[in-house]
């Protein structure tokens, strides 16, 4: 798998500088945490990196191909875990996952089966038939995570994936993120959570849209056992 390259990327929206010009590379097999205070541009960085937004200047590319497709839709290799979860209210927990798989060509029965598997991985296997409105915030967040994991994406972009989780589930989710990285995916997580930052292989920091820190692999003792 290739790397995710942001080259000279700058983002200006409505006259406001959201991201200062920056160049950063995210590598396969790494869990990268993106930190920074609120409004520092973490979400915008993920949106640009995932091809949801076109940078005002610069380029984003994955494995040499541009991520921006012109319509704001991400490439099939990209999976998002959004801060607002991005679940579809008219679908059940299972269906929110299976539709992502169906969209990638999986037969319906197989998609449902894989969805159940992923729900079980995030410890909500018994909530498959629940409607989104019937889930708590933490449960919705886990469904969003399960959806991203289910598609086996090469690029996993997660925005505050642990904000609603308790300590146990947070740690479990971090281990799942590491599993994604371990299978070779590029995993980028924007988070305030110190536990997430501490568990990441790499940490970059933003402040007012500017890349101010890029910490290479953290202490070996904190790495996931899969490494």
């Amino acid at each position: 798998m290739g790397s995710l390259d942001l080259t000279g990327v700058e983002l200006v929206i409505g006259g406001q500088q959201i991201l200062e010009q920056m160049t950063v590379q995210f590598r396969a097999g790494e869990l990268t945490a993106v930190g920074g205070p609120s409004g520092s541009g973490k979400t915008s960085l993920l949106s640009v990196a995932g091809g949801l937004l076109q940078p005002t200047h610069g380029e984003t590319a994955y494995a040499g191909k541009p991520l921006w497709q012109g319509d704001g839709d991400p490439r099939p290799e990209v999976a998002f875990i959004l801060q607002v979860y991005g679940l579809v209210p008219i679908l059940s927990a299972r269906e929110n996952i299976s539709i992502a798989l169906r969209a990638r060509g999986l037969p319906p029965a197989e998609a449902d089966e894989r969805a159940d598997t992923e729900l079980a991985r995030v410890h909500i296997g018994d909530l498959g038939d629940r409607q989104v409105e019937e889930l708590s915030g933490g449960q919705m967040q886990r469904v969003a995570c399960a959806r991203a994991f289910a598609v086996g994406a090469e690029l996993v972009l997660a925005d505050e994936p642990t904000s609603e989780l308790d300590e146990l589930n947070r740690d479990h989710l971090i281990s799942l993120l590491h599993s994604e990285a371990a299978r070779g995916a590029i995993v980028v997580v924007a988070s305030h959570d110190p536990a997430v930052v501490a568990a990441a292989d790499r940490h970059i920091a933003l402040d007012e849209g500017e890349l101010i820190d890029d910490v290479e692999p953290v202490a070996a003792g904190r790495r996931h056992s899969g490494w």
Partner: protein
Amino acid sequence: MVSFRAVRARSGQSLALFAIGVLAVAGCVVAVGFSRATNVSVGSAAALLLLGIVALAAQGAVSVRARRFEIALAQLRGRHGLGLLRTAVTEPLVILLAAAATGVVLGGVLARVVVSRWAGDGTTFQMSRYEWVTAAVVLLAGALVVATVSWRTTCLPLSAKLDSLHRPRHASAAALLFSLLVLIGAGVSVYQARQLGVRRADWVSFLSPALLGLAAGQIAVWTVALVSRLAMGSTRLNRRLGWFLTLRRLTRRADSVATIRLAVAAVVVAGIAVSAWAGSQTWRDQTARMQTGGPVAFAVAAGGLRAYIASHEADPSGEWLMAISASPDPFGGSRRAVFVDTPRWDRVVGSHFEGTPVASVGSEIDALSPAETVQTAQGDTFSVTLSAESVDRAWPTRKVQRIEGRLTSYGFAPLQFTVRYVTDEGDNYTLQVPDDPGTRPPLVAPGYVGHTAAAPGCARGCAVQSVSVQGVSRNGQSFRVTEMTFAGMALLPAGTSGLSLSETSRALRAVASRGGLDLSVTDAYSSHLLLEWERDVLPAALVAPGVRLERSRGVPQVYGPDGDARPIQVTGQAAALPLLGRVGILLDLGTALRGAGGQISGAQARVVARADTPAQVLDDLRGTGAVGRQTTVEQAVADIQRGPRARGSTLYALIAVFGLLIAAVSLVSSTAEQRRERRSEAASLRVVGVGVGDVAGSHRAEAAVLGTAVIVVAGVAVWIGCRALLDVLPLVVPGEFGLLLDATPRLGLVAGLAFGAGLFVALVVFLSFRFVARSSPPSMLSDEAR
């Protein structure tokens, strides 16, 4: 408490609430005002009142729920209890109040225009307490729902108020109860309407179109949800994502499907109204044709005999003119009778009644064909001639004696003839010849004596009822009557003119002889029938099996043109009669006039003419002096149109227009209300790889499903409504003909309306969400987070 910025932010819902309020109030004001101005029952506006209240209540609830965040903010700022409730209700109540005021003004203006245009000459509209009360009811009903929903919203936990996700609103107990009440109400109203009939229509009947419509709307909602749920299993085999999404949306999002509830209800009311309007056009045409009795009708004031004589005089061949006479039952019963010149029916009016209930009369006419008809006379004298020799023998000697010193002649009326006949003015007349019975008939010819007297009222035609005689013939001798002529018609020999010798009585003996008629009379003081018509049993065709006949000695009776009871023999049945309608008896005029007296009051007589009658024939008819006012079918239609009898259908048309407008605003508003969530949904789907085409396809499929549901359910409901309700709603006043509105649903109209409504619903849904998929990039979800 009312922030204009906040109102502007919710301008869509506020505008919808205002618009629906204006339409509901204005529509009710127009409906009530029009009904008062045209003497149609005010209760007829109840259907629109119910639709308006339901629409207003639904939109009011939406408006309150849209203010959850504002209410939560007020709560965070320390407002509680009544203060918080006041925050919740103030804005929607102000909008409702403004809408009601605007609606009253607009409704008043529209009512004035509508009444002046369609309510008949000179009818005006003035606002009354009825309109004010109706507007107040709409306002209060809307306010009550707003207050109730506001109170429930304020009672929600703060977290629920602030929850940005759409939480499924399980139908509240009140909503479920309302749905059940509507269904039950629809069933009861239809049943009760059928039982009570239009003459006793009550509030339940008046509400029935709206109840049926709302019930149909609810059934449509449930059907779509149920069918979608059942069809969800098919998506395990079907890879089409658009269909996958559509079924789930229709099953799980009540507001997606609920958009069609009011649309179906309004279409059902409109369908009944449109069918009523079409039926009323037919009703007017049929009523006019039955009212006139023929394409052109001339009133004849002098009665059926005059009409008969005039039509035969002006049209001897029977190609163009036909006489009709209709007699009421003097006791107000069902023995009303119409007499027609049956030999002329087919040629003169055979095609006039095509398509009307009277059309079937043609099959019964042959059975009524007369064996013999009335013989009419035209002239100005009555003469009777006797043999002088017989008079000499039979004339009694007058006795004279002195009583109390005065000479007095007493006793005998030697011979007097009394002729009873019907004049050319339709009056009964009695002619006595000679005036003084003791006058010996003078010589009129060698060997013959006789009397001649003027017969007034026969110059243009008359008919003899009977001839009587009184007198005394001496010593059993007989007077020999050699000639008796009335107005040019010979009465002897008996039977020549249709009059036959009466049965011999003790006081009168009449024997036909070679020279004439030998009369022997022994009663100086009373007349005895000499010549009379045989009182035939009239062949008659009944109308409707329910006609109740009086019987005399087991023989059914009818009142003839003169009001006298005549025996009849029923030969068949007909669906309806000209001039009478659905209840009455049909007979031949010429037969009924034999021996009949003058026309009774309340009877109508006329001469009807074919539409292509030559002008000369009509001139000849007018020249008889018998006919008066001329009426054509077109004039009759115009008269009915101007009159109050068919205003009910116009009122329902007005109700339908306002109902459809309210439903259209409600539909557009509810779909616009969903746009924000649809955009979020589309973005969420796109971020996981579902293509724009699939998302857009799901919206198209939804539009098609909803449109189809409207077409099917509304079409069926309109059909049921027409069959069940059309002929019991006060749409037309049946009048003397008892003609009811044809309740047969017009397939073309019903299908067209249902299809048009379904297409409109599908179009609104399609256009509302047409660009949602394309204009909702996944990045907007991140914008929400920011």
